[in-house]
């Protein structure tokens, strides 16, 4: 199976994250930039399918120069090669235009299966898999906690509020995964060394037939007008339980009219 995994570089969600004051985009300069955590589960799932059924795994990333670090990190887990859509005009792209670019890139890669994380930890917008499926006219199986491949038939357990749905489609398809689907492997030393030699193809917009005016700030379909830091919560009363902690807690709830 020819599998493409979408990988996004994001600011580390474990640290302080900011929007820039000049163009209101994510501040990548001051951040520790890492692979979107959910994408690691997509990579792992791709590798497991390749191990069981054969095929090839390609990483597809759209992002600035520094995203190369995340691409190498992704490759060190075991994928075969990567494609990096890189163009200055892409800065400031919204979700809608990002889906245009990724769909154009996927159009050249001939994937049977496109795997991705269910959402990124920065935007948490969760729309890309369906946008891409809509553009490519292929099935979208989203929010998977389990994926089964049987020949060309893909079946997922889709996590819902009430439980789960079993959803099935024929390849080609886009499948997005939650972090319950597997346990991503750590890159081995051998994997890290091998990743340095794996092919990474850089694709500028011109090669995709997408005009610069359609993407980035110029083509964005929404705009951030302003942003501000939410005032940090201040801590309130803290008591140490000396036998009456539960009672004190209920007294607090009573003053706040919860009981």
């Amino acid at each position, binding site marked *: 199976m020819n599998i493409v995994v979408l990988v996004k570089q994001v600011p580390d*969600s474990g640290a302080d*994250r*900011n*929007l820039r004051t000049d163009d209101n985009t994510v501040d990548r300069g001051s951040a520790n930039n890492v692979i979107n955590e*959910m994408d690691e589960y997509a990579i792992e799932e791709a590798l497991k399918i390749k191990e069981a059924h054969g095929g090839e795994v390609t990483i597809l990333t759209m992002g600035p120069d520094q995203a190369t670090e995340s691409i190498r990190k992704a490759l060190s887990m075991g994928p075969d090669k990567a494609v990096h859509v890189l163009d200055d005009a892409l800065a400031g792209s919204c*979700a*809608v235009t990002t889906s245009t670019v990724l769909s154009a890139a996927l159009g050249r890669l001939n994937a049977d299966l496109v795997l991705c994380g269910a959402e990124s930890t920065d*935007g948490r*917008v*969760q*729309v*890309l*898999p*369906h*946008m891409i*499926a*809509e*553009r490519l*006219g292929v099935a*979208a199986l*989203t929010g998977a*906690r389990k994926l089964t491949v049987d020949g060309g038939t893909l079946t997922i357990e889709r*996590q*819902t509020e*009430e*439980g*789960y*749905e079993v*959803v*099935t*489609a024929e390849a080609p*398809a886009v499948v997005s995964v939650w*972090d319950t689907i597997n346990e991503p492997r750590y890159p081995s030393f051998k994997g890290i060394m091998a990743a340095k030699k794996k092919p990474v193809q850089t694709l500028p917009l011109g090669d995709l037939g997408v005009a610069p005016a359609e993407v980035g700030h110029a083509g*964005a*379909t*929404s705009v*951030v*007008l302003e*942003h501000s*830091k*939410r005032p940090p*919560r201040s*801590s*309130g009363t*803290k*008591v*140490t*339980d000396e036998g*009456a*902690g*539960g*009672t*004190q*807690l*209920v007294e*607090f*709830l009573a003053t*706040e009219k*919860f*009981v």
Partner: protein
Amino acid sequence: MSEVLVVVEATREFGVKKVTLEMLTLARGLGTPSAVVLGGPGAAEALSAKLGEYGAAKIYAAESAEIDGYLVAPKATVLAELVGRVQPAAVLLASAQEGKEIAARLAVKLDNGILTDVVGLDADGTATQVVFAGSTIVKSKVTRGLPLVTVRPNSVTPEPAAATPAVEQLTVSVPAADKLARVVNRVAEQKGSRPELTEASVVVSGGRGVGTADNFTLVEELADLLGGAVGASRAAVDSGYYPHQFQVGQTGKTVSPQLYIALGISGAIQHRAGMQTSKTIVAVNKDGEAPIFELADFGVVGDLFKVVPQTAEEIRKRR
């Protein structure tokens, strides 16, 4: 006034979800709300009274087994046709998995911008979003097409505004391209009658400190006494104490209840990302240095196995 389309979120068991009433309330600031029911045969009838109570002047009902039988795509097609016909002032959907997915497809079909996790919406379409784990407030606007927004549950207080909605049945014709992802089974896992996690006004969550899956009955007991939902930290879910769909945090649900009680949760940034916009936060943890106390309006440093039973007992006494 122009129509504002509100795509109804409902469950078979509980009917119209609260986020729908929030959307109807928000929609009234932009125009006249019309509710859109996308579901199986007969889906709209059970919901119409409630939708009218909160100001739906009209109900568009798209009811078909084909809508229920395939994932998301048919709903987006029906909605796109409706938008093209009525030219609404805005389209609102719930900021949950399916609402975002329908909105995603609609955005592509209409070549329209989209804003997700919206917590406020002005008459001119300017949306307020809370991003980066609740640390940053953003004002944003769709600049291409109409305001297409997904609204985060528990963002506004639903306000009734009685209306008598006229029901209009929509013709549903699902193209082959929307039948690629077939739903072959739906399995209910949620137990009991607790409110849904993202909608609940009270959430009681347990973390690693709860210690075992069995001990989660303590968390459930307190939640039930307060009429709340049960949540769990990632550490608790990863340890197998509680199912993943109840995970609160960066890689789980974002909740914003009136009251959030964290039991045996240290308050790692991963967890705070999902709960720090809660109105009131209470924490019980044996480690007095745990970061959860930095957010807590009331914190008890102590053994949750002593504090929680006493809390439950005291609540019962006060009834």
